[in-house]
């Protein structure tokens, strides 16, 4: 299994739970994949390094939660795609853009929620 797929599976677990989870809890949720505890820990570490998850200490264990909702990440990608971020840094090459004023508002709002 590729690392990217693992990261995605772990994020899906965290998003579906809605509450912070420990490494053990994530590993249990992915029991059908038969992943080693240390593998799950490594993946969570990587995700924390990329600021995709946030880590808090509860008792002796660390627990993890997504830094933002799945919808917020999609909104961020769409803002890049629709060139609404005001920067052209990602330099994507687009076919065409189509977005109504209200859609743009909703997307910007989603991004602010994520930042806040």
């Amino acid at each position, binding site marked *: 299994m590729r690392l*990217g797929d693992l*990261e*995605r599976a772990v*994020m899906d677990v965290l998003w579906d739970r809605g509450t912070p989870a420990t490494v053990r809890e994530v590993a249990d949720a992915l029991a059908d994949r038969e992943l080693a505890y240390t593998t799950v820990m490594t993946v969570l570490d990587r995700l924390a390094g*990329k600021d*995709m998850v946030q880590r808090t200490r509860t008792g002796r264990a660390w627990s993890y939660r997504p830094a933002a909702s*799945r919808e917020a*990440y*999609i*909104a*961020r*990608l*769409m803002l*890049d*795609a*629709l*060139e*609404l971020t*005001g*920067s*052209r*840094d*990602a*330099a*994507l*090459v*687009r*076919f*065409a*853009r*189509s*977005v*109504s*004023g*209200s*859609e*743009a508002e909703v*997307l910007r709002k989603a991004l602010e929620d994520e930042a806040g």
Partner: protein
Amino acid sequence: MVHVSHLAAALAAGYLGALLLTRSRWTWRSPRSAIVCWQLLGLALGLCAIGLPLEIGLAPYRAAVGPALVAFARDLRAGALPPGMTAWRGALVLVGLLVGVRLVAATVTHLVHTLRARRRHRDLLALVARADPAAPGALVLDHPSAAAYCLPGMRSTVVVSAGTLSLLDREQLAAVLSHERAHGRERHDLVVLPFGALCRVLPFAGWLHAARDAVSLLVEMRADDRARQAHTDGPLAGALLRFATASATPTPAGALGAAEHLEARMDRLVISRRRRPPRVRAALALAATAVLAATPLITFLS
């Protein structure tokens, strides 16, 4: 001083050439030649901007910029400058070098920002985008707005939103996907990149921004042409039209020009598609810009 007059003339001609090429419309019928012209023109302008102050500053050496610069560095270390090498000439040499450093630094900075933003985008895509049999070879983002784009890189990724899937029929989507794959295969992001970097150096030079927009549009037209080779004109034009009419309000702030671009591309696909490519004009423009780019190179070396 003969070199100086060459470079000054090349710089002026390059600037006028950029203005001319921005306004030209033959370019729309031959986007590939026009893109090459723009690259040569950009190279010429950059080299002239570096070379002109150096050439004036190093005039006492009566040599090409390259050898003269080596001789100047040697004399500077030895502490014995030739007569006529005054302080203001030294200052001009410094200006030339600073322009060079600034151009290289801006390009590197722009590249680093771009790569970082793209990596972040790629990381997020890996977490939330999905494959979909409706869009073979592309990733799908579950969002109702319509977007189709290419994330360029060593392995370019084509992405469409769920809104695009519901907006377009199967043929239109296939045409859009080949358009995007053409962007990735021909690395159109690298074609536009130097102009983005130049806009960073001179943010208030309106003609540079106009040049970047012109190149961006040419790149879209080139990708349209690639898509037309694989599909008929109809689906591509249909897809453009649907994108153009899907938004309830005009283009939002920060995306100005997109509507005009759509109109120009539609015109090419629907109205002027039978006009022949402007072979003579394209050949003349290529020759002129090649001479412009060669001028500073020759004055640097001989």
